[in-house]
């Protein structure tokens, strides 16, 4: 047996020696799914500025919003600022993904005070404020901090809502978005374990947990990676954004906007993308007809993150119940696009009638590396009807307001 093995090793060694170039190594997870033709691609994901960047060092005067609107820097010095939540007393809570902090921003009118509220968490990306408590979704668990707004300098210990959500701690889309549903349950995602791979039980899903009992349920399947959702204020239905796979070229597949009209829907991953495009590898196992299509194609590789329905009173009437979506990409595209906050207009039946840019100016050069100076990540409507936009590349929060 040992001799046979030795011979095999020798044979493999000789074969390798005979080749002009060494055989390709197994790719790191983010390159998984590349075609052989893409082997020499120089596309790569971007990393946030982990120490943050000052607005003074950035071309913030290049940001543009429609006539009548105004965009300003609202707070800075929040490295990695992503998901936003609003407290009863007006505190803005801010989650991070690549860092370990949760921030609290206190608005003193003429200035903002930034506190690092919590440290040492595992990708605290999901963040919800509800009935005085702050809920945080980390990689592996969802926790609750009671009475948080009166304890900003002395936060209480975390209470576990659900734990053990990431048992393997492997690379994959396992950071979580978090939203409180009209049913009093916390909605969160468990993404796909790689770019294009067969998910296992509970992966590539949107789940919900009852914060009182910890009981979890599957809400939707076939969702590669959703890190933004909200509930339609008219119908109470869950809507969410989803990231399509990489390495299918510049034009496919689109990232998508979805509507969940009933429990148990399946949106196709890894078999079918954007409702109509079979996966080159997995498409032969299922037909696209078996799956629920998206409401809207948002553009290839644009990386939609936060989305919210606009329910404020400040913007003009035609903005009521529009959806705002922050696009944090693209990177997996030779010609970059996105990096905008988009506006989606729906008719009375929930059909999309318009999809257009709302906040632009982060993208500088579609062929440069990097192509942008900032990346919108989440959007949140404030009580006065203005809108905050987080930029995790720089650790800045912008405010968009409207005046006639």
């Amino acid at each position: 047996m040992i001799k046979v093995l030795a011979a095999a090793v020798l044979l493999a060694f000789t074969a390798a020696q005979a080749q002009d170039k060494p055989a390709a190594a197994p790719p790191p997870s983010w390159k998984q799914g590349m075609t052989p033709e893409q082997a020499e691609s120089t596309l790569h994901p971007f990393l946030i500025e982990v120490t943050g960047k000052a607005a003074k060092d950035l071309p913030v005067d290049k940001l543009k919003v429609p006539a009548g609107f105004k965009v300003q820097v609202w707070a800075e010095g929040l490295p990695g600022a992503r998901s936003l939540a609003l407290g009863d007393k007006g505190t803005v809570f801010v989650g991070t993904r690549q860092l370990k902090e949760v921030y609290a921003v206190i608005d003193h009118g003429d200035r903002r005070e930034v506190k690092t509220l919590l440290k040492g968490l595992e990708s605290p990306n999901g963040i919800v404020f509800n009935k005085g408590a702050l809920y945080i979704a980390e990689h592996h668990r969802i926790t609750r901090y009671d009475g948080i707004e009166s304890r900003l300098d002395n936060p209480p210990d975390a209470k576990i809502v659900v734990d053990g959500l990431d048992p393997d701690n492997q690379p994959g889309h396992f950071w979580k978005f978090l939203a409180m549903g009209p049913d009093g349950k916390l909605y969160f995602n468990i993404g796909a374990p790689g770019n294009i791979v067969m998910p296992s039980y509970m992966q590539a899903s949107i789940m919900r947990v009852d914060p009182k009992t910890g009981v979890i349920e599957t809400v939707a399947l076939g969702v590669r990676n959703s890190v933004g959702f909200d509930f339609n204020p008219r119908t109470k239905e869950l809507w969410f954004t989803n990231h399509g796979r990489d390495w299918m070229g510049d034009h496919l597949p689109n990232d998508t906007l979805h509507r969940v009209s009933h429990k148990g829907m399946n949106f196709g991953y890894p078999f079918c993308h954007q409702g109509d495009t079979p996966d080159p590898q997995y498409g032969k196992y299922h037909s696209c007809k078996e799956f629920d299509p998206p409401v809207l194609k948002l553009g290839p590789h644009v990386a939609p993150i936060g989305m919210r329905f606009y329910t404020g009173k400040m913007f003009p009437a035609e903005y009521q119940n529009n959806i705002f979506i922050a696009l944090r990409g693209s990177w997996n595209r030779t010609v970059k696009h996105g990096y905008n906050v988009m506006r989606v207009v729906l008719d009375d039946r929930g059909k999309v009638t318009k999809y257009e840019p709302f906040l632009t100016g982060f993208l500088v050069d579609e062929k440069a590396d990097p192509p942008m100076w900032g990346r919108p990540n989440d959007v949140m409507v404030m009580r006065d009807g203005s809108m905050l936009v987080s930029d995790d590349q720089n650790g800045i929060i912008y405010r968009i307001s409207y005046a006639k």
Partner: protein
Amino acid sequence: MAAAALALASAVSAADPKEGEAKAAVCFTCHGQGGNSTNPAVPSIAGQPAQFISTSLYMFREGNRKDSQMSPIAANLSNTEMNDLAAYFSAQKPAPSAHRASADNARAGPDLAQKFNCTQCHGARMLGQQHIPRLAGQQFEYLRAQLRGFKAGTRIDLDGKMSESAQVLSDKDIEILVDYLAGLGVQ
């Protein structure tokens, strides 16, 4: 309407290479004048991408990277100080490498760098970009210690990409790559 920015925001000072220069003297002791190291175990930081320098300092402060000399130095640095140091060192001119790769390793290096996905992020000439360091002309022993550390899981990076990439490297691959990289031109 164009943005009317700034007025509302609490002040965060802009990255300032002059401020960085004033703070950099302590760095010269090991990293060399202007960040050009002459110690094979200590990396050159002159002309490295600014984001790589600030990210490295951040990782030392937060404990993602550990080093008996760097960790205590970074422990007391604010984000603004890190950005100032990054602005200063990224603007310094890197000195040419004194290292000469063996003829065999210089020949084998480029194919290995392609095979092991190095070029995709570090670039065809290994000059680095954004948070990704320039490897060309970097100190030999430092490079070897990093690759061995990534493979062993003792050198952690923020996003796991280097840890993943280094798992498949053999000791021999590391020797060839490091010799090749240390001998490359810095510009």
